[in-house]
């Protein structure tokens, strides 16, 4: 589904990401982990079009999408959530989710102003879809609420609902468990598994090791912008380089 080839990104003199290559299989759950500053979010931003790579290719179903804008990538079936929660606080919960489905409706301003019957029908269907998506992610009870009334945990799941509204083929989750307590993290884990079961390819950046080990089919470990290790959870857990990077060389040597 998604193949990264020799990806590079510099910011001036800083080499944020160096020569990263990996492949993500369709329908799998793929995690990207690494210590802080390893380049995980930069990698994410490169894949999702927020940054343009300095070198390398990003192949989505065989097409090189490196450097394309986020909305072009959305049209190619990519959706994402944000580490720092980019929910539209000026809108209601369900409107936020409906925004996610924008591509599926694709109605312009003129049609909107005249409220043509086609707009009316599509909108009603979209609203129903959005409500059921909110149920799917577990926030169905807030369907009539305004974004400002919702707690952080609910907003995080709302964002996932928005990302799913576009019926994406690839879903990128940027630290979905950040800021959540133990129970909420468990709920997110269940949700991500549910999403993957529907056939969506999931890529996540995450610090919560338990979540990563439980969920992932495949893990990519980054350190200082370079690929440190790659493999199944079991393989990564046993890798001495990974342990050294996270825990320091002394402990790593002891493991």
């Amino acid at each position, binding site marked *: 589904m998604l193949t990264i080839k020799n990806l590079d990104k510099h*910011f*001036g003199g800083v080499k944020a990401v160096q020569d990263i290559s990996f492949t993500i299989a369709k329908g799998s759950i793929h995690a990207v982990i690494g210590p802080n500053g390893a380049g995980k*979010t930069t990698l994410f*931003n490169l894949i999702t079009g*927020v*940054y343009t790579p300095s070198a390398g290719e990003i192949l989505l179903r065989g097409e090189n999408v490196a450097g394309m804008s986020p909305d072009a990538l959305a049209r190619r079936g990519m959706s994402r959530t944000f580490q720092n929660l980019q929910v539209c606080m000026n809108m209601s919960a369900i409107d936020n989710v409906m925004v996610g489905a924008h591509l599926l409706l694709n109605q312009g301003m003129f049609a909107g102003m005249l409220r043509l019957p086609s707009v009316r029908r599509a909108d009603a269907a979209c609203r129903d879809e959005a409500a059921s998506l909110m149920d799917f992610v577990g926030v169905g009870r807030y369907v009539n609420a305004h974004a400002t009334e919702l707690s952080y945990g609910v907003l995080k799941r709302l964002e996932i609902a928005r990302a799913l509204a576009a019926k994406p083929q690839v879903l990128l989750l940027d630290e979905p468990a950040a800021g959540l307590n133990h129970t909420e993290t468990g709920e997110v884990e269940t949700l991500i598994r549910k999403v993957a079961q529907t056939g969506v390819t999931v890529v996540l950046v995450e610090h919560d090791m338990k979540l990563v080990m439980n969920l992932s089919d495949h893990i990519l470990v980054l350190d200082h912008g370079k690929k440190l290790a790659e493999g199944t959870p079991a393989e990564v857990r046993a890798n001495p380089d990974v342990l050294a990077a996270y825990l320091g060389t002394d402990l790593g040597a002891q493991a």
Partner: protein
Amino acid sequence: MFEQFLQFFYSGVTVGSAYALAALGFTIIYNTSGVINFAQGEFIMLGGMLAAVLVGAGVPLPLAVVIAVVVTSCVGLVMEKTVIQPARDAQVVSLIIITIGASLVVRGLVQIWLGKGTFSLTPFSGDSPIILLGASLLPQSLWVLGVTLVMVALMGWFFGRTLLGKAMLATSHNRVAAQLVGINTERVLLVSFGLAALLGGVGGVLLAPITYTSYDAGIMLGLKGFVAAVLGGLGGGAGAVAGGLILGIAEAMTAGFISSAYKDAVPFVLILFILFFMPRGLFGAKVSDRV
């Protein structure tokens, strides 16, 4: 032909120095608080108007100038305390609208008190022009330029050498960090408004003998000062001065050689050009955003 060019150059430098002072005022406030103070122009207007009124009431010129500048600075302090403080954490749009509101209040009050007439001051050292390289230079222009340079030097000393000045610079870079180090950021904001008002007031007093001042002189002066500040990159004193002078000269040349009706359009055409092609100004540093 050369004399004409020089003539326009001199008048450009003169008015450019006033723009430079306004630009400095904008820059100081922007740097310490991120606010673009749309009322900056009114400080310039106040300086000139107050001095003119005081002289008209019989106060000797030097005293009138001092009082005018002090009162204008106080207006700046009051404005910060009453209007900016309560809305410190508001959005950009709100702050812009608030400063516009403040400028309306100041302008309206002056209009009520002094009417819509024009005022002027007698030049500080007479008005017999000096002939320099074949073109005539008003003595007042030398005052404007001279005082501007002195003020810029003073600002440089203040920000570079004094504790308060360094505290203000620290606040401009990172307000939270400054607070954590014990800097009273509220006082810093207050001082920055007072300073900006002082600079504006001085500019107004210097300029009044050359151009007539009236209750609505502040709008254009403020806008042009802002353009000069953006030209200079909204960074430091050197940029503001350069921006002011470039703007003043460009304006004078346009008025002289192209069309005096559209000379006021020059700053706005310039600012559009800058905003579209060089948003960092001529001297601003290139910064990449970290997402």
